[in-house]
């Protein structure tokens, strides 16, 4: 996926303080720029989708993924990062 440098971070779980702050700081520390954020809260259930730019990361994808997973475990949330291509493939012709 060399040509593409965008990824999607999704956070699912129960709402609590500091979710966006936590995710943003993990991304900031690794040189990842946030391009777009949208979030909804449905019955206290938190859905956040963040599109990020991976063109100048300071660490490999696996490490970033690991850091987000660790944060997810710490906060009791499911945090994922997936390359943007999967969504483009499935939803754009």
């Amino acid at each position: 996926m060399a040509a593409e440098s965008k990824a999607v971070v999704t956070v699912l779980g129960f709402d609590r303080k500091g979710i966006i702050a936590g995710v943003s700081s993990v991304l900031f520390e690794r040189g990842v720029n946030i391009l777009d954020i949208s979030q909804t809260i449905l019955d206290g259930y938190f859905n956040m989708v963040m599109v990020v730019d991976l063109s100048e990361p300071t660490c490999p994808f696996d490490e970033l993924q690991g850091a987000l997973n660790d944060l997810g475990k710490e906060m009791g949330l499911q945090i994922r990062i997936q390359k943007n291509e999967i969504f483009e493939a499935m939803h754009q012709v």
Partner: protein
Amino acid sequence: MIQTSQILETLRMIDQEKLDVRTITMGISLFNCVCDDKRRLASRVYSRIARQAENLVKVGREIEREIGVPIVNKRISVTPVSLITGAIDDPIPVAEALDRAAKETGVDFIGGYSALVQKGMTAADRRLIASIPEALSETDLMCSSVNVASTRAGIDMDAVRLCGEAIKSLAEKTGDKDGLGCAKLVIFANAVEDNPFMAGAFHGPGEGDCAVSVGVSGPGVVKRALESVKGASFDVVAETIKRTAFRITRVGQLVAMEASERLGVPFGIVDLSLAPTPAIGDSVAHILEEMGLEKCGTHGSTAALALLNDAVKKGGVMASSHVGGLSGAFIPVSEDIGMIEAAACGALTLDKLEAMTCVCSVGLDMIAIPGDTSAATISAIIADEAAIGMINSKTTAVRVIPAPGKKVGDYVEFGGLLGRAPVIPVHPFSSDAFIARGGRIPAPLHSLRN
């Protein structure tokens, strides 16, 4: 720009509907290993595979992590072994080399301990078929297949007889595991050369040195999509399946292109099959039931499956640059929770399964039959299935397990993706004299096709 709802829909497909890529399969030609010393041949085969597939599992895992879609299996298929063992007297060392190479590379299965004998058998083909019970009972990851018929060549009834005997003997040799060896052996008509699915994968003689192919899955996603069109006409059902199949196949295409680039190996094909697993929510039978059948196997099942099989192809074909393999809906019994339930309650019989294979992508698959079923009856089941494939110009196959010591109503347990199955009855009347005839059933006419 992708909508948030589309992103969440993809996550739902992965988490709840079990969207996955079933396999990345690397096809490897073994023609350059040929020599007339069996030890040297085996060692060349091992080295060739171990080197070529060195990074397959690593790359598969990388892609899986990056796109967030599970890639359940990584597999290898090779040139049919009978084609490279013409100058040696015993193919078993090659079987051992294949199994070792599979373990060394970390793949889940290796396929291609195979012979293509639709028109006749060479001495090497006969040796290979005779060695199947020993080869499959003494290896762990190796799969085997024999193509006994084709629309152009007819049915090789001598090979059909030998394959029935091989299945029987293999079941007995692996009797302590309910005849598990038979789950690794498929008898084909019109086998395809680029199938990435096991147990029937081999790298056909018309293929290049190496290629990566991908087999998709996704029955759960189709079932869920149909839940949203309850009661709608079949026009709507077909369109819904097509749209869903398109999305599933796009995932397969993405994975295939990435794997091809990272491994430096040409892209082969995407196989658009709906491959079920025994997990709840991953069943082809449940798709048919969602169309309005109380139980899979009842009247209407063949029509429902025909629609499904065709719509999957129509939806998937535009999503990939090269579609191939078996591409359609699989109906394995033990690997599909809905099929298991339908067989257990008597809704799904061997005869109905045979009818359904006229319109599904392959054939009689992963069916447990009584342990006392004779080799001739198994051969006759193969002959019937081969006839359906031959006349209808489609791939058909037989993968049955005559589970030693088991009777109708007992269960066989294979575990993992292979699942479990109730033993279902075969006809008690003999086909012995029919199978004893041997020879060939001639190829059919290609016109006057009513």
